[in-house]
């Protein structure tokens, strides 16, 4: 791709961008949200046309009019939201749009064979072709989508945040597959916010910032800090800010608590002024524990104390009234109301201050929301703006603002930095530190070990539904945490 520019009205999303991809290489495309990565892959895949610039594919001019044409030329995108038909079987999904037929009838046997063949090709013959896709794990669904792309004889695979919902083991399997595909001559454009992973997987990198090339080169020749510096455009002195804070009395204590979806009872206490990290693989029970704490899942066993007071194990309303706030990992599906405004989303859990005789005083509310927008540095034009028009990072800020607006003293944060850009991430870390310094208690679930190690005071590890270990952060390092999340034990010889 040469000199690609794309303007949307007056805004210039891409400005004279160059990008080249060699056969059989993994090329990481990096940059913050809004840097122009998505625009670039949309142009590559044919979803939009560049305002200026040319593309060449294997020496020939390439200007796809639609994603379909792009796919026919061998360029497939594996999107963050998976594009599968959940009711249909694996085979039906793989063959979708490329069915084989004879005399108007489907050649089902042949197609099934072909699907099996492709699944073997990606080293996942254990995925059965007759199972409906909705019964597969997220990782297996991704494999199905990759299989579909390979069936189309993809020469270039564009992977957009492929690991954001995978657990450790599945990530490694995906990396192995990427290596294998590379060996088969497939080129891969790899987009991820997980920079450590990118370092592992990619051969080369290109960084975009504000729609411009700011750097590219061999992956081995650059450090993590160097990449971050390129992405952010300034030197990040401290990724994980630490403010002096004092751990106070117990804020929240669960004693032998067991929610409906938990496999075992869990006892854990959280102190004021403390950031307690919860590590664990996807499905290890950390999210279930958080949901039980907040009352989203019914609890039939156990005791929950907030401060010194034991509270009834009813739904979320009572917990909110007692100062617990919960940030869902599923921002779009559960965390926010997508069709509504910034103001609605921030104040939804505490409308009482703006209510007089049952009517909402919208003017008063807007003023207050404007203060929050400034305080949280949310990039929104007005309180009335729909949150759908905000970037992921700004949406997350809105979700956090809601917890602070409802005056939560205990914050349960489930993957608060997932899918948001680096600057927003740093912002979230900063706030967590500030909030802890103010004496709030924070429970922080994350799949990203470096941030747990960087931010938390203590880290608890969940393994197969059980609380396996709790230790101060000084007694953990990345190896021991990885060991604990994948085996339930810290391996011998550590500390």
């Amino acid at each position, binding site marked *: 791709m040469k000199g690609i520019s794309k303007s949307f009205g007056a805004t210039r999303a891409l400005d004279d961008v160059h990008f080249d991809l060699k056969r059989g290489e993994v090329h990481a495309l990096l940059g913050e949200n809004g840097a122009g990565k998505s625009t670039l892959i949309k142009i590559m895949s044919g979803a939009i046309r560049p305002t200026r610039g040319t593309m060449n594919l294997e020496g020939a001019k390439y200007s796809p009019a639609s*994603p*379909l044409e792009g*796919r026919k030329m061998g360029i497939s995108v594996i999107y963050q939201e998976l*594009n*599968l*038909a*959940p*009711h*249909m*079987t694996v085979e*039906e*999904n793989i063959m*979708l*749009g*490329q*069915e084989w*037929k004879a005399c*108007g*009838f*489907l050649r*089902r046997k042949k197609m099934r064979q072909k699907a099996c063949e492709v699944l073997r090709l990606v080293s996942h*013959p*254990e995925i*059965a*072709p*007759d*199972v*409906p896709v*909705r*019964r597969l794990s997220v990782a297996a669904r991704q494999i199905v989508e990759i299989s*579909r792309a390979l069936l189309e004889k993809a020469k270039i695979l564009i992977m957009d945040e492929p690991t954001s919902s995978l657990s450790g083991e599945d990530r490694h399997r995906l990396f192995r597959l990427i290596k294998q595909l590379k060996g088969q001559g497939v080129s891969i454009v790899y987009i991820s916010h997980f920079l450590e992973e990118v370092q592992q997987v990619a051969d080369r990198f290109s960084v975009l910032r504000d729609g411009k090339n700011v750097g590219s080169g061999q992956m081995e020749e650059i450090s993590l800090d160097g990449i971050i510096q390129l992405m952010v455009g300034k030197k990040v002195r401290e990724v994980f800010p630490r403010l002096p804070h004092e751990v106070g009395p117990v804020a929240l204590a669960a004693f032998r608590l067991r929610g409906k979806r938990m496999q075992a009872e869990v006892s854990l206490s959280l102190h004021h002024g403390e950031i307690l990290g919860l590590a664990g693989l996807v499905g290890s029970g950390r999210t279930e524990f958080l949901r039980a704490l907040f009352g989203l899942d019914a609890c039939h066993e156990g005791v929950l104390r907030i401060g010194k007071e034991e509270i009834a194990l009813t739904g979320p309303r009572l917990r909110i009234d007692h100062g617990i706030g919960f940030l869902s990992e599923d921002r779009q599906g559960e965390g926010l109301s997508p069709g509504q405004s910034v103001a609605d989303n921030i104040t939804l859990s505490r409308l009482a201050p703006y209510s007089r005789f049952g009517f909402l005083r919208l003017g008063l509310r807007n003023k207050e929301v404007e203060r929050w927008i400034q305080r949280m540095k949310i990039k929104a034009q007005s309180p009335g703006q729909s949150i759908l028009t905000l970037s992921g990072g700004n949406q997350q800020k809105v979700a956090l603002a809601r917890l602070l607006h409802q005056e939560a003293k205990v914050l349960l944060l489930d993957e608060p930095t997932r899918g948001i850009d680096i600057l927003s991430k740093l912002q979230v870390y900063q706030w967590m530190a500030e909030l802890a310094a103010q004496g709030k208690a924070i429970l922080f679930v994350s799949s990203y070990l470096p941030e747990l190690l960087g931010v938390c005071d203590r880290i608890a590890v969940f393994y197969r539904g059980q609380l396996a270990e709790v230790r101060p952060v000084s007694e953990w390092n990345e190896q021991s945490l990885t060991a604990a999340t994948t085996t339930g034990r810290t391996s011998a010889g550590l500390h």
Partner: protein
Amino acid sequence: MKDMTDQTTKTSSRFRFVANIVAPFLGLLLVILIFSLVPEVQDRFLRAGNFKSVATQSVIVALAALGMTFVIISGGIDLSVASNIALSSCIVAFIINAGLPPWLGVLGGMLTGSAIGLINGSLITSLRLVPFIITLGMLGIARGAAKWLAENQKIDAPITWVNDLMARSPQPPWLLMAPGIWLMILLAAAMAVVLRFTMFGRHVFAIGSNEAAARLCGIRTRRTKVIIYGLAGLFCGMSGVMQFSRLTVGDPTVAVGLELDIIAAVVIGGGSLSGGQGSILGSMIGVFIMAFLRNGSTMMGWPNYIQEIIIGFIIIVAVSLDQIRYRRET
């Protein structure tokens, strides 16, 4: 190793298939069983003649339900079906009454039905409005057009062979059942094949399951949708012909509210209103569950409202059972 996994997946898929069909089928058998155990109606209910008349009564709903199955699997809904049946039947009567040959009337009815369906489909895809709204509008438009055509009365028509289509005792006698019933059986079989064994059928499922994914895979979703609604309209047209055949006149006020019966049949048979699920056999069983319930209740001398209440319960029970099964599977 490979053979083993193949074996288990095959049995699991076969099991699913069986479970999908057996569940509604058991419901149908249960309904028949209940009425055949009641001594007062037993002998009348179990007579072959009674089964034949239940089948005849079902033809109109069944034909429309065939098209509705496609619509619902694709994640849509068609509320205009009953009005479409009424309009098509009036067209048939109008043409025959005008002295034209009966086959032209039949053709006219079918074309009218298809046209309404194609208009539905085109409006849904071009205006990008939800099918509920478009077909709700068409429900009024088609019904109004039927009344206009009939000048708010019934359209009389001379008796022709068209009326034999739904006759109790068919000519020639070796047919055993009315030609309409045979047509229903043949079309149901054909549509089951189309749904399972053709690309079109697979694309219908794909659109209902995840329309964005279908489009991404190069399926012409708009065109497919227009065809789906057109097909549903064609079946309404045939249903309209049968309606005329049975009434011997074109009545613009016929089949009011019948769309709910048609949708209910598909849903009882395992169709999901959110798309991606459903089968022809299931829908047909749904039609017959309701028909046998009506028939049995009438024989028991139960008033009409009892039938309505029972059918209401059946819809809720059938769909919630289906939901439980679905959840357990996932």
